[in-house]
């Protein structure tokens, strides 16, 4: 006979009423947890503001919204430019550091080359009927995607809260983003 197994002394055992209360508590917790699982959530952190890197978060956000997901995109550092009404219309593409571009780095680094590569990409976007950044952003806003502009980087970049598209949330920070990520089914850093 094992002495490791303590006998349930009558005094230590929970009463029937205590057990019933505990079961009620757990059932409530289970119901609450299952309720929250109804809709899927996606949380994206957008940190880049070049023309090519502005697309993935917006394409995924609008598509996830079409799936009925609850979507939050938290924009920080150069990602803020995607939400900036003026700057979003003139996002640039650089071929420096991108060996897949048809221009050698030494040439790409020459003054004015970013303008050339950006024009090239803009023409391709137009020829291919690919949605513009502005279109994707407006569409996503219409579909209920929540766009957040990181307050610390707004201040750092010296942007004004009125510079952003209508509907963009300001006054949020890392804790807000982290909470969204913790609750989300999909978390992405772009």
């Amino acid at each position, binding site marked *: 006979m094992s002495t490791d197994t303590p006998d349930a002394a009558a005094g230590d055992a929970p009463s029937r009423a205590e057990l019933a209360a505990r079961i009620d508590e757990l059932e409530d917790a289970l119901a609450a947890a299952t309720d929250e699982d109804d809709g899927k959530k996606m949380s994206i952190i957008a940190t880049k503001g070049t023309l090519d890197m502005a697309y993935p978060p917006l*394409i995924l956000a*609008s*598509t996830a*919204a*079409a*799936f*009925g997901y609850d979507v939050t995109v938290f924009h920080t550092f150069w990602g803020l430019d995607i939400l900036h009404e003026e700057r979003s219309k003139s996002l640039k593409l650089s071929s420096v550091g991108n060996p897949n571009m048809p221009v050698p780095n030494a040439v790409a680094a020459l003054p004015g080359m970013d303008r050339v590569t950006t024009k090239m990409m803009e023409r391709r976007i137009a020829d*291919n*009927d*690919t*949605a513009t950044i502005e279109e*994707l952003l407006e*569409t996503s806003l219409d*579909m209920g995607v929540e766009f957040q502009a990181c307050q610390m980087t707004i201040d750092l970049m010296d942007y004004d809260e009125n510079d952003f598209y209508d509907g963009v949330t300001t006054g949020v920070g890392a804790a807000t983003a982290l909470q969204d990520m913790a609750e989300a089914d999909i978390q992405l850093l772009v």
Partner: protein
Amino acid sequence: MSAEFDIAETLDVKGASCPMPVVKTKSAVDDLDAGAVLEVLATDPGSMSDLDGWADGTAGVELVGQEEGDDVYKHYVRKTE
């Protein structure tokens, strides 16, 4: 095509590329009555896989047919609820 369903609305997204066929289909489906079928006309070859995946992962819609015509991809989406 011998349709086993009536088409309530047609959405023309010819020329549009990812993600617009899916995004515009979603908006058009929102405006339908339950049970109605939306016809989507697209030229984006990716729309075959994308609309299938979207309908599969989205509550309240069902892909009832897809057809590859001459340069046009046709999709039929029913709003189920």
